[in-house]
């Protein structure tokens, strides 16, 4: 079955305060969404990410590995988390993505994996 990356996008300036009632509510919704994915056999993997400012960029050139601070893309919008799901087709993936958008309250991108 095809796999899709369902990623969550937002401004990277977001507050990582998970104690607010709103964040608590979203966390509960996302938890319920995860349960639904697992029950349907669509779950492969998922993770919420630390802010993009915590990222390190690593390159290899001529056997030399170099590192630089910061996310690869210098854009305001960054990926805040993702799911990898396995489902029958695009329409099913988009339906899951709609549920992910509702649960997280964020903008979602769907992208198919090779294979």
């Amino acid at each position: 079955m095809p796999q899709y990356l369902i990623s969550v996008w937002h401004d990277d300036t977001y507050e990582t305060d998970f104690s607010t009632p709103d964040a608590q509510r979203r966390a509960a919704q996302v938890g319920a969404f995860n349960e639904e994915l697992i029950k349907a056999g669509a779950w492969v993997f998922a993770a919420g990410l630390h802010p993009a400012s915590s990222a390190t960029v690593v390159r290899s050139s001529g056997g030399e590995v170099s590192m630089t601070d910061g996310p690869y893309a210098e854009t305001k919008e960054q990926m805040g988390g993702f799911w990898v799901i396995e489902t029958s087709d695009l329409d099913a993936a988009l339906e899951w993505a709609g549920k992910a958008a509702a649960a997280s309250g964020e903008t979602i991108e769907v992208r198919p994996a090779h294979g």
Partner: protein
Amino acid sequence: MTSPLNEIFRREAGRCTATLIRVLGDIDLAEDAVAEAFAVAAEQWPKTGTPPNPGGWITTTARNRAIDWLRRESTRGERHLAAHRLRIDSMEPDHNPELDRLDDFVDIVADDQLRLMFLCAHPALAADAQVGLILRLLAGLSMSEIATAFLVPEATMAQRIVRAKRKLHDNHASYRVPGAGELPARLHAVLAAIYLIFTEGHTATSGQTLTRTDLSTEAIRLGRTLVELMPDEPEAIGLLALMLLSESRRAARVAADGTMVRLTDQDRTRWDRTLIGEGHELVRACLRRNQPGPFQIQAAVAAVHAAAPAAESTDWSQIVALYDQLCALRPSPVAALNRSVAIAELHGPTAGLDALAQIDPASLENYQPYHAARADLLARTGRRDEAVAGYDRAIELTTNSIERDFLARQRAAL
């Protein structure tokens, strides 16, 4: 070309391609096979005569060609239906890799064309890609014809269509008619894409000629096919009625000197009575069903215009009522704009401007008809300077030279 073969091509290509996509599970392979079958027909039919069922002949020939190609491919690699790309709900031929079993699937199924319409107008595709795919796969237009119609370089159009096909393929888009739950939204996307083709033909968004008949004709043809395939969908009927009623005014929209003529000023004796008759019949059929939708309501507005023997006898109260209904059913800035214009006709330009003031101007900032309509109402209430500014903005936003000339004349008359 208006040869008999060309006529058959226009009629059958979309249907054959739709079936071959289901049989082969691959858009490109289906297109190539159908093109090849028509090439064989062009060579054989002049000698043997046109077969009694040309569409069936083309489909079978295309299928056989594709099987030959796949056999050759499968001897090179191990891949039997290597090119099987789109998932097919009802047929599942990918669970059935015996190539000969393809015979079982080759019958032309009416649903194939529907499947293809829903695939081409998939909401994951941009509107211009949807339109390109529909014209390429369902209407059988060549890449250069589509590019010419949309006034973009052929390479641009080709890239757009190739990218759209690749997206559908990479995303494992299904070849199916959406289920009842998703049908209303998905059907609306199909209708909107067909209407976009029609409006592009009706008022070319750029270029020298105001109307591009071919696109409107194709859109109406697609609309008819859709109504045949979904006879119980009132919105499909509404779309066809709307297109026919708009099309009925084509001859009257452009004056002898090539300038644009407003609805109010059109010579109504030049309206096509046959199209109006058909459009009215469809609108009445919609009313009997009593499941109103945006296309049906817009068709009803067009029907009210068509029923008026002169501009002065237009039943504007009926039109305002219809726009009230449209704004309640599917609120949008454009619907609110049209409602305001109708209110101006019914209650005068000041009332129209009051209604316009209810719309957030930012939502229509780049919408030329908003500035043109507002400028007209401002001029009629004597607010000349504001009207001039409005026309300036409308002219700035117009890419069609004939429409631009019209607006410039309106502005000059102030």
